């Protein structure tokens, strides 16, 4: 019996099928116990008064944010710490993100957190900042995005198809919202819609939670 463990392992390492099965079994336990329950936890995916469904314009702006990789340097996740709440605003809650596909919390704050940036600056400020960051923020190391002012929001892909796909995933878009989507972004630049998105960020939080 002393060598029981060794004999068991001898079997595993002499049989490639058993070894593959063993690896698959052992490595999936963590996912099944820890990740799977989160994926099925309703409170993480149920909309509340804090949840905001993006309009066609905001959704397109969000896709511009993704395209330019803003999430590489800016987080959207305010931790419940005194300094953080003071700097950025009320801490982030799970129900604020139920319409975020993908989530854009980020992992690195090369620039400041943006979860509650909505309403903090004027549209004009954002426009100047995106065109020439150092003209409004001394020492800023943010790149300028001059091309966003020239490119059309329409070029971000078929907005109606995007909304239909999201509808399939459970976002409650009405037929009317989808019908007017094209007109909603028509004639706008990618910078316009990006600013619209930035201005709505974090504003969905209900008054009593602030």
């Amino acid at each position, binding site marked *: 019996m002393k060598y029981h463990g060794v004999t068991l392992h001898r079997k595993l390492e002499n049989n490639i099928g058993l070894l593959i099965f063993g690896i698959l079994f052992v490595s999936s336990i963590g*996912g099944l116990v820890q990740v799977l329950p*989160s994926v099925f936890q309703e409170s*993480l995916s149920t909309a509340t008064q804090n949840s905001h469904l993006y309009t066609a314009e905001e959704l397109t702006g969000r896709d511009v944010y993704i395209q330019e990789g803003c999430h590489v340097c800016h987080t959207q996740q305010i931790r419940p710490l005194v300094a953080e709440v003071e700097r950025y605003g009320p801490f982030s809650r799970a129900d604020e993100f139920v319409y975020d596909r993908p989530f854009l919390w980020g992992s690195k704050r090369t620039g400041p957190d943006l979860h509650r940036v909505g309403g903090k600056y004027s549209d004009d400020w954002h426009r100047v900042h995106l065109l020439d960051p150092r003209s409004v923020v001394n020492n800023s190391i943010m790149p300028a995005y001059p091309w966003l002012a020239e490119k059309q929001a329409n070029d971000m892909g078929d907005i109606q198809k995007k909304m239909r*796909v999201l509808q399939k995933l459970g976002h409650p878009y009405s037929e009317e919202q989808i019908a007017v989507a094209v007109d909603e972004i028509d004639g706008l630049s990618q910078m316009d819609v990006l600013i619209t998105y930035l201005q709505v960020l974090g504003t969905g939080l209900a008054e009593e939670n602030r």
Partner: protein
Amino acid sequence: MTEIRETYHDGVVKRLVQFSIIWAVLGMLVGVWIAAELIWPGLDLGQFWLSFGRLRPLHTNGIIFGFGVSALMATAFYSVQRTSNVPLFMPRLAWICCYGWQVVVLAGGLSLLAGWTSTKEYAELEWPFDIAITILWVCFAVVFFGTIATRRIKPIYVSNWFYGALIIVIAMLHIVNNLALPVSLNKSYSIYAGAQDAVVQWWYGHNAVGFLLTGGFLGMLYYFLPKQANQPIWSYRLSVISFWAFTYTYIWAGPHHLHYSSVPEWVQSLAMVMSLILLAPSWATMINGIMTVSKAWRKLRVDPAMKFIVLALAFYGLATFEGPMMAIRSVNIVSHFTDWTIGHVHSGALGWNAMITYGTFYFMVPRMMGRELHSVRLANIHFWMALAGTMLYVIAMWGAGISQGLLWLSVDSIGELSYSFNDVMASMVPYYGLRLIAGIIFLTGTILMAYNLFKTMWGRHTVSVSPPDIVDEIHGTAHMPEPEPDFDEGTGREVPA
């Protein structure tokens, strides 16, 4: 035997090594470029495709999938033949795997520049690439496991368990994390939303580090370290225990990337505890490696490959200690979102992944080509540049990250923030400058290696090596390396038998 002897398929190994070296140089060049952009933001030259937000994922993907995975495929193909005593199973498929992978990395890289991205870290490539990766990964699995299935030596050697875990677990993570509904060729929406998407992504993200950058490279360690030291693995039993403990524990640690976020607290706490437990199998492996070298220390003086592998082991120990510490919630308050994380990643990526890969390349290439390394002296210079670059990088990022973390959290006596975000950002310039210098030093070393190895490979085919005739099924035989020629301590050259 009278028929023509079968030989190992080393041509595909050589080609993968070449691609890996090319990606290393390109990936690090992009890294150096974006490090400079953080000091001089105008370096994007007003071009959308040179913008930091697009180049940074190109850097990580180029290094992990171009340099890293090509090196893993090369070393897996090299070692699985020699630990199974048979040539590769379906060698044509291995070639498809080799070239197909390069096409995906190249096209995928261009797509990132075009702004196609799913945003999920280390899984940024959009769905068409995800499907191509899945198919190529299956090819990799068929060649690798097929070779093992046709082996002429009974026990499956330790390095193959790790390469096996790499293939299986990465397949599982890749498929689950990338599930999405496509809108068009370049756009899809994740089937998970918000907090749930975050949990799934970091289950993937952390274990891509775990099973690709750690597990896969441990496969390299378990084959090439004993080979180079000419010693069997110190403890077979320790390798068994650490392998299964590693495979079981790593998977739980992902949500430590989400401390104090809006995911359930029990998920965060569990991840923290499992991250701390992970220290045990990680260090068990490190101890096993160090003890294996313990009878061959003198080789460190003369053998550049050995130097790289042993130093990689030291950085492996450092990074696997630092990781669990950063996973402690109260430490994470300071380290999260800062450059400390970037430093931690690079102590692993430069100190562990790149160094062990360099060591195995310096080992493999002369053997495959049947000639000596073009210049041992150049390899030694590379070694010191790699060490200096890594240390400078890590120290600069510790300075940057810890000061960012503490300054951001600092409040004065009446509870007001002490520093604006801008103040803290402006104070980063010296650290970012040091990091840029570190990157340039490391990149220069890599270019020296590229020159040295391409010079060694130039104008030659790989030599034909046949599996040994003797099929010895005695357990443990596979753990014994064949005797190797001795080294002349003065010149560093092999002494002819």
